[in-house]
């Protein structure tokens, strides 16, 4: 246990801190490096539509600068940035003034978390099992069919797959609703829960398809290496039942790289969820980000970016810290 804490958990935790610091710093620096000044943009937008008193414009400019955290020297701004983060204050959402950005994110978060959580779980398990089976029975018809279709789906960008699904199954053959997360007011009643499932089905399907395809390809490769190893050949010669070999020998040993890869591909799946939400107008964080872009809501975009970085880094950390559950070598040394 001590070994786990000192040589594994602690360095991993440090890595998490590094990611957060680098991520926040990058998010801080980049808008300030770009040639476009959001304050001037906003001022121009406002004063272009009507004549305003120069004093009012000056006051407005000062309050916007405070809002965007652009007061003071860059060092002061940086410290102030971190202070606000610790306080959990990401500023008001300009498109829904004065609702704080944190409230908007908090409302959208459960939708994304539900969609992402369930699809990651399903696609990871499905891809792992199907990939291992495909590697173990390489010459069956269904293996070829499955592998070919998944390999064809894999490179397709999330947006295009989502678009195709929406066009076919929500527009032309209207089995599924076109937009939204659910119908009615939130409660634990059956109609509401059913409508959640109905609305989530297509977005989840597109995420599961792509996630499974990726996981399948990786699992097939890993299982292939495990299958050609000595201990599996010995187990087969010894006449062990196929199910034992598959589960306890092949799958168990190819599980490890899959877990670390899950932590690394979390970012990609998160991005996929964002894109899918835009296609299906699913009321999660991705959709909020999209509307924020449409409405030029700089605060919300910044807030969602920061939140994504912290969220994905933390989720990856948690997955990595659960590594010993899968790898006895880390547990027992």
């Amino acid at each position, binding site marked *: 246990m001590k070994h786990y804490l000192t040589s594994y958990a602690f360095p991993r935790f440090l890595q998490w801190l590094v*990611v957060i610091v680098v991520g926040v710093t990058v998010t801080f620096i980049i808008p300030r490096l770009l040639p476009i000044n959001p304050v001037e943009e906003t001022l121009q937008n406002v004063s272009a539509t009507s004549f305003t008193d120069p004093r009012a414009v000056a006051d407005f400019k000062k309050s916007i600068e405070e809002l965007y955290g652009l007061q003071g020297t860059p060092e002061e701004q940086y410290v102030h940035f971190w202070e606000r983060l610790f306080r959990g204050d990401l500023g008001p959402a300009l498109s829904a003034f004065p609702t704080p950005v944190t409230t908007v994110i908090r409302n959208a978060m459960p939708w994304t978390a539900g969609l992402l959580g369930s699809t990651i779980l399903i696609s990871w398990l499905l891809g792992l099992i199907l990939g291992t089976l495909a590697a173990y029975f390489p010459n069956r018809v269904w293996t070829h069919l499955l592998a070919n279709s998944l390999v064809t789906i894999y*490179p397709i960008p999330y*947006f295009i797959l989502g678009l195709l699904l929406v066009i076919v199954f929500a527009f032309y053959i209207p089995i599924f609703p076109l937009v939204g997360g659910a119908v009615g007011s939130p409660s634990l009643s059956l109609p509401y829960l059913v409508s959640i499932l109905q609305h989530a089905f297509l977005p989840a399907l597109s995420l599961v398809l792509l996630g499974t395809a990726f996981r399948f390809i990786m699992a097939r490769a890993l299982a292939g290496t495990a299958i050609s190893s000595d201990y599996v050949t010995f187990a087969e010669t010894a006449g062990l039942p196929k199910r034992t070999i598959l589960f306890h020998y092949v799958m168990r040993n190819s599980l490890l790289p899959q877990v670390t890869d899950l932590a690394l591909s979390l970012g990609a799946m998160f991005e996929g969820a964002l894109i899918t939400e835009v296609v299906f107008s699913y009321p999660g964080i991705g959709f909020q980000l999209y509307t924020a872009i449409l409405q030029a809501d700089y605060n919300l975009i910044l807030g969602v970016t920061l939140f994504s970085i912290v969220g994905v880094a933390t989720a990856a950390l948690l997955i990595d810290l659960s590594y010993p559950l899968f790898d006895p070598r880390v547990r027992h040394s």
Partner: protein
Amino acid sequence: MQTFRAATKIVADMFRYSPAFRSGSTILVVLLILAALSVVSPYGPSDRQVVPMNLPPSPSYPFGTTALGQDVFWLTAFAIRNSLFVAGLAVVIGRSIGVLLGSFSGYTGGATDRILSSLADTFIVIPRLPLLMLIAFILKGTITLSGLAVLLGLLDWAWPSKRYRAQILSLREEEFTQTAIFAGMGSLKIIIREHLPFLIPFLLADAVSGFLYAIGMEVTLSVLGLSDLQTPTIGTMIYWSTYYQVLLTQKLWWLIAPVAAAVLLVVSLYHLSTSFSDYLDPRRRLKSLATSQGGAR
């Protein structure tokens, strides 16, 4: 001359024995021809109102026309060319940084290696799409295709650099590396002269995956309106067609062309990359090098 003949033989072999390579290369060649046709296009890429609007596909307009009075066929040709350009530039930039940092980090070892690897791990975890959207949003209206490519490339070096580092780490232990060091070869020369030939097959397969990522990101950003909307790319075609509500007005040809082009492009590229990496497995190559030159080991 000998390498050219060897390369043609490899391509011929792959064509004969790998169905993935056959399908991938034929589809890609068709798309490349279409992209190359764009130089003889009778219309400029950003011209509007040059043909009658909203006509379905017909012999005179094989892919139909758009609501802005453009010919979808020539638009698609430009779109493929521009998307390939953006993806290509992004891959060149990203992989150059990745190869340099990864090789340097793997070869030098020690604290530099740890710091660079930690940095690479950091950039892998950070979700790039929100960051890209933030940057593209701030630059909205002023970003060019080259700018977009540079942006994509600058954020796509981390994962490749890890892989190159792993390759260099294993190559460093090879006997011929030790021989070169004892013979007094400088580190940079070793990396370039001795190790790079082994990295190249991996580089090619990895470049294709970089292409796929860049195409996907370009489509995503364009569809959200965050790139150069005046220039036709696959993404901007999808953007404009959905902007003009092709689903509701039943004028789908404007949408189908870029979507089909995108799907065909990515699938063919992927087939090429898998057949390539299957054929040019570094371990197989090391063994075949040893037997053909009879002296490396």
